[in-house]
């Protein structure tokens, strides 16, 4: 809402001027109100003008724009917008292209050399015979040849005739192997814990063997000190011996 300041006391002017001023001023003010111009700048204008007492501007009609000029302006605007859109599109396209190339290069770097890949594809078509001694793989671990070529962690199966470089491969699916290993580790940990873990009543071998020494009538030292084996004092010696002949 525009707050209209109370009109400042005007300098007494001719009555007609007063009448004229009053009407256009009020018209303008109404105009401003009716139009509902939200910007306070536009509403403040008439007030300032009122204040200045610049009556000419108030009297002036708004600028007249010819249709042609407006059309030209609109077209120019459109063109500008179109151009910016096009530029943006081309920029984006280029960016995308560059990214794609980068990805392709990275992928290429990750893959095995072409020669090996070729050999693999030809080999997968031949009949693959497994050696009977190496049947350690699970049935679940039997991998078909459609493994992702990019995954380097999967090794080549044994006895592929065309690849004669290194015949000591053994194919294992690592996912299953991890599960198997973790279960085996858990089992070993269980046994270790139940036999030697906390709560079991274990002692060292030295203490165990020294118990007897403690109870002798003449107490002897612990086995660790008495026993040659622990101290590793004399592991090798030459001695002189004779036997009857």
């Amino acid at each position: 809402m525009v707050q209209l300041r109370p009109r400042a006391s005007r300098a007494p002017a001719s009555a007609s001027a007063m009448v004229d001023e009053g009407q256009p001023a009020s018209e303008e003010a109404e105009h401003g109100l009716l139009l509902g111009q939200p910007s306070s700048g536009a509403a403040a204008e008439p007030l300032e003008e009122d204040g200045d007492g610049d009556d000419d501007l108030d009297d002036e009609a708004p600028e007249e724009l010819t249709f042609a000029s407006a059309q030209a302006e609109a077209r120019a605007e459109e063109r500008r917008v179109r151009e910016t859109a096009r530029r943006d599109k081309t920029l984006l396209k280029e960016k995308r292209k560059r990214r794609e190339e980068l990805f392709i290069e990275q992928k290429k770097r990750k893959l095995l050399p072409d020669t090996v890949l070729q050999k693999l594809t030809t080999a997968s078509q031949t009949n693959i015979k497994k050696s009977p001694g190496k049947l350690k793989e699970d049935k679940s671990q039997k991998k078909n040849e459609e493994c992702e070529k990019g995954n380097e962690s999967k090794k080549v199966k044994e006895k592929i005739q065309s690849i004669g470089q290194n015949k000591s491969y053994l194919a294992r699916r690592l996912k299953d192997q991890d599960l198997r290993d973790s279960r085996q580790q858990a089992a070993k940990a269980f046994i270790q814990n139940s036999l030697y873990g906390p709560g079991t009543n274990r002692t060292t071998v030295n203490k165990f063997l020294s118990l007897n020494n403690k109870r002798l009538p003449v107490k002897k030292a612990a086995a660790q000190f008495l026993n040659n084996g622990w101290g590793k004092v004399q592991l090798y010696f030459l001695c002189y011996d004779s036997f009857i002949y």
Partner: protein
Amino acid sequence: MGEFKVHRVRFFNYVPSGIRCVAYNNQSNRLAVSRTDGTVEIYNLSANYFQEKFFPGHESRATEALCWAKGQRLFSAGLNGEIIEYDLQALDIKYSMDAFGGPIWSMAASPSGSQLLVGCEDGSVKLFQINPDKIQFERNFDRQKSRILSLSWHPSGTHIAAGSIDYISVFDIKSGSAVHKMLVDRQYMGVSKRKCIIWGVAFLSDGTVISVDSAGKVQFWDSATGTLVKTHLVANADVQSIAVSDQEDSFVVGTAEGTVFHFQLVSVTSNSSEKQWVRTKPFQHHTHDVRTVAHSPTALISGGTDTHLVIRPLMEKVEVKNYDAALRKITFPHRRLISCSKKRQLLLFQFSHHLDLWRLGSTVATGKTSGKFLVPGKHGDTLPLSKDADHLLQLKTKGPENIICSCVSPCGSWIAYSTASRFFLRRLNYEHDNLSLHRVSKMPACLRSAVQIMFSEDSTKLFVASNQGSLHILRLLEGSFKHLHTFQAQSGTVESMCLLAVSPDGNWLAASGTSAGVHVYSVKRLKLHCTVPAYNFPVTALAIAPKTNNLVIAHSDQQIFEYSIPDKQYTEWSRAIQKQGFHHHWLQRDTPITHIGFHPKRPAHILLHDAYMFCIIDKSLPLPNDKTLLYNPLPPTNESDVIRRRTAHAFKISKKYKPLLFMDLLDEGTLVAVERPLDDIIAQLPPPIKKKKFGT
């Protein structure tokens, strides 16, 4: 003569692996023993408890269960989740089958021997059918909550008892579902925090289930009602194993404290027919956990973490009370793990995953004094070392397999060893105190899994006995080899691991191990020369004497034969001693002879040793009869003439160096003795259970 410089070697750090499972086969009287490193050994209990065969260990094959099935088939299962069948003739693994249940904790063969039951980590019990060539999965039983640690079949084959953690389940075979679930009290020394692990169960034919658990209790349950009948608290620690005899009138349990208890079914009073189980005898032969026990018709067998295999014959079951009824404790290996190069004074020690090469030290002092500073050598003197023993080389094997056998050539330039999948040959070059090692690559695949390797005396030929029974001869060239010949397996079943002997002149090769007897091959003509007649006890050591080419064979019943290879018959001396018979003390030794050697200058001397004595047999002296003293206890310097005349017989035995792993004559005046005191082994074992003694 008679005076030797003796190299006493104690730096062979041999520690055997603990015993994990034993399985007794009644029909053939054989015992299968599996160790914690995966080795499975077969002992022939009727051949003087000799270890006749073994399957080398593997890091991933930690066996948890071992059992015999119908037809002498041996199965084992372990934490890698696989069931393995062993081929006792080819000395190889037939196949391994994954049970898909995770790590396998227990396995039991049905009383009929045609089915196999396996208890797994995930709580499932799986039934397998034993077919003539393989086993086949049949079905799963109801899955339980926790891992199945022990299994036992009812003698009729209709029910099984499975021990788990905190409870025991009884299954019905036909339906596969659990019929009863018996909860076990956790109480352990007044505290019930730790879970109660049922280490062993046994199912008797009257429906009683006997369980042993980690709280130290032996409990009797009635499987028909699922209730507890009786509890015996036998130990303050875990009771880890149980075995019932075939007649079901006695059983044996092993505890973690090393004690083995014998329970027997005795009548309540002398006339009544009512019987009850009574704990009769405790045996303390072990210091560490007794992880496994077995019950043969006449003996109790136990083995555990302290690596001894103890066989205790029961006096009431033994018919003839002779030396056979004595306690047998098998601690030291029955094969040679050490080879020696006499020229360079090298010793090669074989461990399970590496080899050690040592050079012996030397001394400038001799027994016979020459300067005024040296004291004349007395019996038992320790000589000052001018050069200490040198650790030259350590060869480690890559991979999880254990080394089966190894050998160093007499000239010291070649080392050969074999695992189950590969054969390795290495050439050593000695240049001015520097040692360099070269690998000989591309060994033929037929050499893998060799059970015995031997070099010829001049180190130009290599003889390899493979586990399939064939013998290979290779000629060694400067940095490579050439395959000369292969002798195929002869007829006859494989009775024990093959032993080889080569004559010093390189003409003859002797190989034992089959039921046909010892074969002697001519290396020059590359064909079979003759066969020593078969003897019903396996061969424990074999050697060919220089110059006379007499083949000396030692058997597991302590008999020794001497066979002349050129004449193709037993020698006079051999016939004489067979006629008279060996001294009874000689025949009562428990450990087998593992090495035979000869004196280079005296053809009448044979040097042999077992774990507790070494003996020089002088063939020119008269043989002892049963009345004379076999062991001469007096030192030679103080001896009087009378005693000397009385005890002058052919067997000169010394028990000074024991326990012996290897003994040989390096040259005329030098002996090398590799000892392994038992305390040194015990010092490296895992911790035992604490024992509380009053006053300590």
